[in-house]
């Protein structure tokens, strides 16, 4: 593995210092990117003060404008940065001893890609939500939280040091908490919000310790300093200490928490309790990719340990497979897509792990479009059918008037998720899977095969939803939110309006065409070029294999293999869920025990509850009942009784509460005198 390490040339991305003078002007207005949403957040927050007031309806527009402006600035910034780098300091934040963490931004192509995704999807979701959330009591509150989320997320992406990144990291966690628990009177929502925050915190502890260890080893938490130090080590061929090699593993924990990987993925499916636009924005397109971004950003550091990236690859791979199995067995549309998100995030980690940073980040990019489209499409269904999300109770929606745009965009997004040829997901997934066969590493070929099988499963569960819900005979039952006469025949689905349709069209187009930005492969495409110019650049090996024949070049045969697998998955779904629906139930009966387990998510939640939560709480009860109440307080009570007993013995006629203590004081003072006298 050490030889593998030596193959990567780290020099091109590390020459920050020389370019800094030339690009100083670049970042000067990057501060506006978080500032516009911040202003929007404050304005919406003020409007939320009177939720029933007419003015609170303006919150949607304010949020759209704030986020839209941030998007425009992000685009300008991306154009301005190009393949260069920039740095801008807003103000000094924490400075003590040698520790320096300023509110400063580090700008490179990776930053600008992430910014475009975050602010772009953010704006679209705000437009969507302005219709979707209309009439909700917390309309203004919702947009305040969403704007605040964009503030935190852009800070995370723009940070020039790990501590500021941690600020954004925890900030998005807060917004996630607030938004999952948005319907705060619903116990499930409150529980899910709490779970998300706490599970994330477990990962965050790893992140925090990683930051501290980074500081100890590098004397700084700033990316530029860290990268320069790594470059120096590379140049001198210095031995990399165990401590330095531990850092990636600590940071990894944080990444796995935020990006919902095994064993910390459990919070994401539950997070679907939040409003659907939130699921699309935070729990599919942006926040959950923060872990991927962290590793991509810190890639030079991860390369210092021969075990770090293979670990990332394997965790991603197993998560992808594991959550795909759960996704195949669920009935709630949003849950299926939630498990799919976990699975796709697994692909991204796989990509980073097998040294396809372009593939990993490109999949992040394309996934943002098609997964947002899928969630927003499901949201439209949920909105229109009074909260109905069970795919057994919905069918043939494309024939229902007003649902054609939703169906079309869902179809395109499903194709992209299934990796159908020439859609967005196809290009990015292939890049990752092919690279697994190119890069030498521990079991990387196995990762490639597992990834390929998972791709087939993905195609199956995606089209299971599509064929069930949108195709077939028209039939539907409204969900629990339907407060009519409880007569399903009088239920009229509420077709989406122009704002929702517009957003779905844009995202549908993205699901098709976003992939073309990466055409040309990691080395020649626009996207590859961007990533190569950032700190996530390390693709050097696969170039050499291009000249070989078709079957010996994974980047070529993978396109064919994954197309076949994807179409096969779609075909099975078509048979079981469109052409011969009763067969699906027969198949399920045939493997009933396994199917049941998968439907119950392999009982992971129950296991955690039994093995971690309950014992901890029991310890809490024991500490409180035994430790505090009985032993320690018992001793104190005993100590308190002694002077009282003496008092009772000495002056039995008098009784009063403070007497004993007065005596205790006198006794203490006497003891003091004795001690002092003894010392003299």
């Amino acid at each position: 593995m050490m030889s593998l390490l030596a193959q990567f040339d780290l020099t091109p991305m590390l020459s920050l210092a020389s370019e800094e003078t030339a690009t100083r002007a670049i970042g000067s207005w990057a501060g506006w990117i978080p500032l516009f949403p911040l202003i929007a957040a404050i304005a919406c927050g003020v409007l939320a003060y009177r939720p029933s007031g007419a003015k609170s309806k303006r919150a949607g527009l304010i949020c759209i404008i704030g986020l839209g402006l941030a998007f425009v600035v992000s685009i300008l910034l991306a154009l301005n940065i190009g393949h260069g780098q920039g740095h801008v300091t807003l103000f000094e934040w924490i400075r003590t001893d040698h520790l320096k963490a300023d509110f400063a931004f580090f700008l490179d192509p990776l930053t600008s890609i992430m910014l475009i995704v975050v602010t772009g999807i953010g704006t679209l979701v705000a437009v969507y939500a302005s219709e979707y959330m209309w009439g909700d009591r917390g309309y203004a509150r919702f947009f305040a939280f969403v704007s605040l989320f964009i503030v935190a997320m852009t800070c995370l992406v723009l940070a020039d040091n790990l501590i500021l990144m941690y600020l954004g990291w925890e900030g998005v966690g807060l917004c996630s908490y607030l938004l999952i628990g948005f319907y705060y009177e619903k116990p499930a929502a409150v529980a899910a919000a709490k779970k998300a925050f706490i599970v994330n915190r477990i990962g965050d502890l790893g992140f925090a310790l990683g930051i501290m260890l980074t500081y100890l080893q590098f004397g700084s938490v700033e990316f530029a300093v860290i990268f320069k130090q790594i470059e120096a080590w590379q140049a001198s061929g210095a031995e990399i200490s165990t401590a330095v090699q531990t850092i990636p593993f600590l940071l990894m924990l944080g990444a796995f928490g935020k990006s919902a990987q095994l064993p910390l993925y459990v919070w994401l499916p539950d997070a679907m309790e939040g409003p659907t636009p939130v699921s699309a924005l935070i729990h599919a397109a942006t926040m959950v990719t923060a872990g991927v971004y962290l590793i991509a950003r810190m890639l030079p550091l991860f390369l210092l340990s021969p075990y770090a990236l293979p670990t990332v690859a394997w965790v991603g791979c197993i998560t992808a497979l594991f959550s795909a199995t759960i996704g195949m067995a669920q009935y709630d549309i949003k849950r299926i897509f939630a498990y799919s998100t976990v699975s796709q995030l697994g692909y991204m980690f796989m990509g980073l792990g097998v040294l396809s940073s372009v593939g990993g980040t490109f999949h992040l990019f394309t996934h943002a479009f098609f997964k947002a489209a899928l969630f927003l499409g499901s949201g439209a269904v949920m909105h229109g059918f009074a909260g109905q999300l069970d795919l057994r109770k919905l069918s043939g929606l494309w024939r229902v008037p007003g649902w054609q745009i939703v169906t079309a965009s869902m179809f395109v997004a499903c194709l992209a998720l299934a990796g159908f040829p020439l859609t967005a997901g196809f290009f990015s997934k292939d890049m990752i899977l092919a690279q697994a066969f190119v890069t030498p590493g521990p079991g990387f070929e196995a990762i490639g095969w597992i990834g390929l099988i998972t791709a087939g499963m993905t195609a199956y569960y995606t089209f299971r939803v599509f064929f069930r819900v949108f195709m077939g005979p028209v039939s539907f039952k409204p969900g629990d939110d339907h407060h009519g006469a409880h007569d399903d025949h009088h239920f009229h689905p509420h077709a989406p309006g122009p704002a929702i349709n517009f957003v779905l069209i844009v995202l549908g187009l993205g699901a098709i065409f976003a992939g073309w930005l990466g055409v040309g492969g990691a080395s020649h495409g626009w996207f590859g070029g961007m990533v190569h110019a950032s700190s996530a650049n390390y693709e050097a090996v696969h170039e050499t294999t291009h000249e070989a024949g078709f079957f010996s070049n994974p980047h070529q045969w993978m396109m064919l293999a994954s197309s076949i697998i994807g179409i096969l998955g779609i075909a099975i779904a078509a048979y079981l869920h469109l052409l011969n629906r009763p067969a699906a139930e027969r198949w399920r009966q045939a493997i009933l025990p396994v199917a049941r387990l998968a439907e119950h998510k392999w009982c992971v939640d129950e296991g955690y509850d039994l093995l971690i939560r309950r014992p901890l709480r029991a310890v809490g009860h024991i500490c409180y009942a035994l430790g505090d109440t009985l032993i320690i307080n018992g001793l104190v009570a005993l100590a308190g009784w002694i002077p009282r007993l003496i008092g009772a013995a000495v002056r039995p006629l008098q009784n009063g509460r403070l007497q004993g203590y007065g005596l205790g004081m006198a006794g203490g003072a006497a003891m003091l005198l004795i001690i002092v006298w003894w010392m003299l």
Partner: protein
Amino acid sequence: MLLTLLLIPTLTALAIMLRPARHAAIIAFIGSMVALVWACLVWNAFDFADSASIQLAASWTWIEPMGLSFSLGVDSVSLMLVMLTALLIPLSVLGSWTAITERVREFFLWLIILEIAMLAVFMARDLLVFYLAFEFTLVPMFFLIAVYGSTNRARASIIFFLYTFTGSIITLVGLLYIAWLQWSHTGHWTFDIATLTATAASMTASQQAWVLLALCCGFAVKVPLFPVHTWLPLAHTEAPTAGSVILAAVLLKLGTYGLYRFAMPMCPVAFNEYAPLIATLCIIGIIYAALVCWVQRDVKRLIAYSSVSHLGFCVLGLAAINTTGVSGSIMYMINHGLSTGALFLCIGMVYERYHTRSMDELGGMARRMPVWTFFTVFFVMSSVGLPGLNGFVGEFLTIFGAFTSGQPLQGLPTTGPLGPWYAAFAGTGMILAAIYLLYFTGHLVFGQYHVPDASRGGGHDHAHHHRLPRDLSLREVVVLTPLAILCVWLGVQPDAILSRIEAPVNQVIAAVETASSQPLAAIMTEDGEGH
């Protein structure tokens, strides 16, 4: 200048005594506001370029033969705590405006007397003045709990008194021993803190260990460190809101301040040696108290236990003996004062409306009290240590200090006896804090709305109850807003404090380091007759 800061509350106390009871609250408020303004003037007069040295000093001879003098002075660390005290008293007065209905005059009188004592503790330059003020804080607090507390107040106040008094008597022994040592060296008595610190630092290692033990008895109870923390939940639970606020925000800091001001510089060798032990106690306390928090049904007791857990971080930072840790610890003192004080105020506001603290009876307040919800969630987040708010800076820096303590930084040795493992274990407190605080918000703030029937029916006999609106009144918003603003400001600009306390902190660390890096033999011969 500093004397005036003590005189203002004294005059206020006099005025409260002389005027009728219905004027007590307004006099207390005006008086404490004047004190706050004066404290700001003191801040303005303080020269932060020279923050390590005692400034604005004033001294009056008191009992000459005993070397007692009434001397005051502040360095920047003391000044921060003076500011905290001066800020929280008017807010507590305002917060108790309608909550106290009986014996109003005494209530505000005790509160103002408490302010005098606390200010005197932080400004004292004479050991006995410090100690007297330190002990005297017990008296007003005792009465605040015993008279104005809830059902179990008698037991709470007595345990509070007994516990802390016993501890601090032993502290007095330690302090007197140092004074006696000084007398045996020079032949005349003095209680000047600076002089005695110098004397104490030259003790042998074993003498220092004993003195440290004595000092810790009082200070650790006050902090409170595990396992001498059990008085705190009881006292907090039973105390009236203002009492809880002051107790959490300022009185607990007397313990950490004592450790910082006396234990560290007076027993440097011993402190360095026993810091791992102290840190271990802190970590046990952090985890233990957090787990106990998680099973509470009484919201006030929950926040009380959270103080035990939080203060563990604070002392951990001191035990790290490096700039990051100790600065973080002082940041923590201020931050904990702001956010936990505010949380007690928030709980008090609900208590005043529904007369219960039980999570079984209260829940889902978000629906009825959105403004209150905003503040509560805000301060919970500050308490959880959300970056961008104040709590994060203190927590992160103390853990950071523990982590980097004594570790080679880029090959260069650094100060401190701890290491990454301490930070890793203490860090679990970050997770646990999220667990119990979200458990708290999940039950009290969110979920289904439910309140006790009695208060809903309106059949309650508290006349003042009807005067309170359903959500927060303007007065209550005014109480919480300054704290919220400070939380944001210190979260975004922690440098405002960090840069100002760095010099005195470094001085203390240097004192500990130079003393403990000297060969022990040198100390032994230097001060051979010590025993």
